[in-house]
Structure formats: structure tokens, C-alpha cells
């Protein structure tokens, strides 16, 4: 390899790493050009508010995708956790009112569903795609059955403070998303578990030969994703003041799209939770920006699709790509 081509590939590599951030910055400049309100503090807060739940969801889901697996149970887990949390705080269906103690219960429930995902996937050797899809349906089914298809309304204002409350002018949900990000980042960067996830995603056979406990790591990653989904369920319930089986409708697509747009490869081993946060911001800024710029509703979906393709094309590391499937 000549020195020249090495330099080119090194700069291509740098571009690839920075691509999601460049896309985000480009979008912000473009939208601000059309509507200067975009940069207002009020809009910044609104953007972060819209990004909060997707960020929490992406933190867990990124680990799964880094392993080269996928978690399709997101909507089912979020819905069931939201419904259970709603039924445990002051509400209009039952007399239970355990207040904020409902939060750890929801997290534990999410974790249990995630554990079930991982355990079934490993022990039955079923693809994560099918296992988690099934678990998602189970979650939606239970959420539907519990409420017989109806909605439970929350009257506990302390619980709703988790979304509506503000600290330093920033909504609680955003702080919780920030905390989730820090937890995920520390796990990714500072723990053996975090490194193992990359090792498994890069090459599972080598990782196994290196003595990495593949099965335990996989089950733990799914459990962790479940806990994050449980937190998202709590935030969704607090945001809308209600729990219902349909509360997470559309969340799965946003989550996976944001992770991929952020530059995490579906093939595993490449990416990070930082990328996922940028990915969420790209998706949220784009949705917000299209309304601000007054783009016709009829073309919005098309623009979104083009952006996803563009972001993935920019961010994809092709050096490890032997074949394109």
C-alpha cells in the first residue's frame, strides 16, 4: 500500500467517524437558516424533551446491536412497564398508590423481560430477532389483557414530575436521559462487560476462544436493555399521564433508525452509545425542522428516508465488509 492511499483511507476513516455529527451540524445550520427560532432556548429544551425517551431506549438497544443481535421487544416491554407503573401509582382503576416506588418495580419488570429475552435466545438457541419479536408480543398481549384494551389515567403528580418537573429550566425527563447516557457510557468504556460486547460483535468465535463468557454477557446485555426499556416505560407514562397498550407505538422503528443513523453497524462491533445519542438527535432535529421549515407533510417521510440512507452511507465502515447482503 502506498503512503498516499494510506493517507486517503485514514482521512476517510476520520470522515466516517465524524459523519453523524457533521450530518447533525449540517441539519442545524440548514434549519436555522429557514427559521431562527430553531436556536431559541425554548426550542432547545423542546428538542431535548422529544429526544429523552428515545435516548433512554437507545442506550440499551445499542449494546444489543453492538453484539450483532437485535431487540424487537422494545414496544412490548415499554408498554407493559408503562401500564404496570400506571397501575401502581395513584390512578383511576385501582386503589394502589405506592408513588415513586413504582419506578424500581417497572425497572425490575423490564429487566426480567430482558433477561427472558436473553435466556431464551441463548438456551433455546433461537435467533434474537424471533425471540425478542415474540417477547414483544407477549408484553403487548399482557398489557392489553390487564386493561381489557382500555387506558389507565395517572393522578399521582409526584410521579408525573418525572417528566413535567424542571430543574434549572430543563425537564426531568432530560436529566433522566442524561443519567441513562452516563450509566451506559461508563458500562461501555469502563467495564469488562462493555469490552466483551465489542469482542462478541466483532468476532464471536475469537471471543469465545479468548475465554469471554459469551452466554452470560449476552443474557446480561438483554437484561440491561430491558431495564432501560423499563425506564422508558416509566417516562412515557409520566409524560402522558396514562398507561395503555399502545403507548409505545412507533418506538421500535425510531430506536433502530436512530442507532443506525448514529453510525452503529447492524452487523455488530462498530459504534457506541455516543453515536446513538447523536443518531437520536438527528432524527428528532429532522422531525422538528421539517415542521419549522414548513415542508409539505406529503414529502416529509421521503426526506426522512433519504436522510437515513445518506447517514448510513456516510457512516458505514466498508473496510471490514467482505460482502454486502
Amino acid at each position, binding site marked *: 500500500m502506498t503512503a498516499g492511499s494510506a493517507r486517503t483511507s485514514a482521512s476517510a476513516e476520520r470522515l466516517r467517524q465524524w459523519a453523524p455529527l457533521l450530518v447533525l451540524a449540517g441539519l442545524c445550520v440548514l434549519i436555522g437558516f429557514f427559521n431562527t427560532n430553531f436556536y431559541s432556548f425554548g426550542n432547545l429544551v*423542546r428538542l431535548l424533551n422529544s429526544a429523552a425517551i428515545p435516548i433512554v431506549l437507545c442506550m440499551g438497544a445499542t449494546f444489543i446491536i453492538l453484539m450483532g443481535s437485535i431487540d424487537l421487544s422494545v414496544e412490548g416491554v415499554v408498554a407493559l412497564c408503562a401500564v404496570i407503573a400506571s397501575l401502581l401509582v395513584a390512578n383511576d382503576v385501582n386503589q394502589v398508590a405506592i408513588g415513586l416506588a413504582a419506578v424500581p418495580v417497572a425497572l425490575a419488570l423490564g429487566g426480567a423481560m430482558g433477561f427472558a429475552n436473553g435466556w431464551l435466545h441463548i438456551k433455546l438457541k433461537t435467533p434474537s430477532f424471533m425471540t425478542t419479536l415474540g417477547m414483544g408480543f407477549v408484553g403487548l398481549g399482557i398489557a392489553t389483557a390487564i386493561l381489557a384494551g382500555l387506558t389507565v389515567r395517572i393522578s399521582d403528580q409526584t410521579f408525573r414530575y418525572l417528566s413535567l418537573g424542571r430543574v434549572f429550566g430543563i425537564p426531568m425527563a432530560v436529566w433522566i436521559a442524561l443519567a441513562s447516557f452516563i450509566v451506559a457510557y461508563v458500562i461501555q468504556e469502563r467495564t469488562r462487560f462493555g469490552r466483551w460486547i465489542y469482542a462478541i460483535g466483532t468476532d464471536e468465535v475469537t471471543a469465545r476462544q479468548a475465554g469471554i463468557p459469551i452466554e452470560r454477557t449476552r443474557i446480561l446485555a438483554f437484561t440491561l436493555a430491558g431495564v432501560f426499556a423499563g425506564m422508558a416505560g416509566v417516562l412515557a407514562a409520566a*409524560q402522558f399521564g396514562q398507561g395503555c397498550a399502545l403507548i409505545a407505538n412507533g418506538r421500535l422503528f425510531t430506536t433502530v433508525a436512530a442507532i443506525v443513523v448514529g453510525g452503529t453497524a447492524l452487523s455488530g462491533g462498530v459504534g457506541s452509545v455516543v453515536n446513538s445519542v447523536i443518531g437520536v438527535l438527528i432524527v428528532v432535529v429532522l422531525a422538528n425542522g421539517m415542521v419549522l421549515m*414548513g415542508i409539505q407533510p406529503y414529502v416529509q417521510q421521503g426526506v426522512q428516508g433519504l436522510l437515513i440512507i445518506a447517514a448510513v452511507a456516510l457512516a458505514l465502515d466498508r473496510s471490514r465488509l467482505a460482502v454486502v447482503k
Partner: protein
Amino acid sequence: MSDFFKGGAMRRRTFLKGAAGLAAAGAAGMTFPGLARAQTEGWTLANSLRSVANPYHATFAKGGEDFAKSVGLPYEVLVTEGNSEKGIADIKALLQRTGGKLILNVDPNDSPDARVIVEEVKKAGGYVVTQWNKPDDLHPWDFDPNYVAHMSFDGVPTAEAIANALFSAFGGEGGIVALGGILSNVPAIERKLGLDNAIAKTGGKVTLLDFQPADWNEQKAFDIMQAWLTRFGDQVKGVFAANDGMGMGALEALRQNGLAGQVPVVGIDGIDAALAAVEAGEFAGTVAWDPTWTGSMGLAIPLAHVAGKIDIAKEPKEHREFYGTGIIVTKDNIAEYKANPPKVDYNDLWGKATGQIQYRG
């Protein structure tokens, strides 16, 4: 296509109470008093709908169940889960199992499904009522007597009425934003048309700042409302939502910005949360459908034919293709509405029908 029902049309407890009362009345033999037992013996009743995960269809299914109990016939609920193939296959299987002695009340997953379903039911000798979705050129009277009726709700006048309630809530002058359903859905199109009519009649006093489809999705409505607050700020005097679910999403976005109760919102469906918001002064109004009625009357009318009480082929067209009644609920009548939730009289087959279905352009 009735994706837009994200919420319940009635308070759950009042509904359960009412249902228990009706069931008791049925058990006492008050309903269908002249019904010759032998004629209806062996028939099965069934409601086919999208999913019991949404309050509208859950209440719809319960309405059918209560009616079935009142007449002492077996009852089945079939769910399509948004899949036309599954919906039709399940209906065929049930026709097979009941040997054609099936009374089916169906909300077809998509308009074209209605024709297939009607043909299958006719072939098997059963009876069918369709709700909401059917092709415009498919009429009950062309399949006498098996295709008993088609029931729907007229979105145009309903949306116009609720839009007017919104306008008067903010003084009748200023800009509004509007959230629509999935662009290709018939109810979404009708409701947009009703809104446009209402705006046109204000003679420029009310302007539509922006219209965005939020696909009947609460979360999407929340995000769009947030962006609108950035784009239009205090120019937004009111929010029109084509269903309550999206209205609730917009309301929560307003609440996050300290504007709940200051910028009025209207929705359609009459779900619990929307009724509570009307009481709290955060919603200027909603439209309450009556899924207990659609769920039971779609079975009661064909059963009356089977029992020989009526001859459906001799009924006028406005009894074969008709609109149900939506009740506009605002702060002025919410107390009365909640005190007297809609009741269903199984013997008054067309009491709540409001005219023959119109086909627009």
C-alpha cells in the same frame, strides 16, 4: 381503517355498570320479547374488529358480548390485528364451523375486504353487517337478504361542529394548528374536510397556520405540537386534532410549556382522558361515539331478521346504509353527559341512526 380510536368512548366503570344492567334486563327476558326461540336456536353471533388493544374496539367487543348474553346465544370475537388476510381467513373458518348459521358484525380491516366477506357470508347463508369500511359501490340491497346493513359515522359535519366549538373557545378570531390522521384513511379525509368547511365559514377570521398528519399517534402529535410552539409561538390560539389520542399528545406538549388550559384543544372519539380534559377546561370539546351501540346493533338487526321480526329486504335504504350519532361534548354538557351515558335499547333498531350514507365525489 379505524386506527384513530386510541381511546375509550365511555368511562369504564359506568360502562360496566350499564352493561351489567342491560345483561340483567336481557336475562329477565325483557329484550326481544316476541322472539321465537326456535328460529334463533343454533345461530352464533360474532364481532370482527382490528384489535382489543384499543378502547374503541374493546368497548365495541363488549357491546356485542352483552347483547349475546341478553339473547342467550354463543358469541365470538375475531381480531384482524391489522391483517386483512387473517381477518378473512378467520371469518371463513367460523362460517365453516357454524355451518353458515353465523351473524357477523364486522369492521373490515380495509375497504376491499368488505366485498370478499359479504360474498363469503352470502355463499354460506349467514348474515353480515359491515362498519366504517366498504367500497362505495358495494350495497347491502345488492346482496339481499344476507348483507343486512352498513353502518358508519359522518366525519364531515362532526369535524365541522367540533371545530366550531374550538373557535368559540378562543373567541372566534386567530390562528389554529391541526393534526390529521393517516392521509389515506377515509375518516381522516372527512375530518379534514369538515375542518376546512368550518374555517371557510368564518370568512377569514380563523386561519389554519399549519396542518400535519400525526398518523393517529399520540407521540407524533406531541413532537409536532412542540415544533409548532417554536414556529408559531403565541400565534396558536387553538389546536384541532382529528382524534382524541393526538389531542392528548398535543395537550401534554402544551402542558410541558405551561400552556395547558390556555390554548384550547379539541379531539374526536370521546375517550376517558379527553372527557376528563374537557372537565378540567383543557379540552374545548370532543365527540363521543357509541361503540356499545355499534357493537350490539350490528348483531341485533340481523338477529331480528332471523327471528322473523323484520324482513330486511323490505326495509328502506336509510335502514340499510346509515350513519350513527356522535355527541358533541363540551364543558356546557359534560356533566349531563357523564350523568347519563348513552344507553342502548336493543329493540329500537334504528333509533340512533341519523340518515342514509352520502358518497362524496
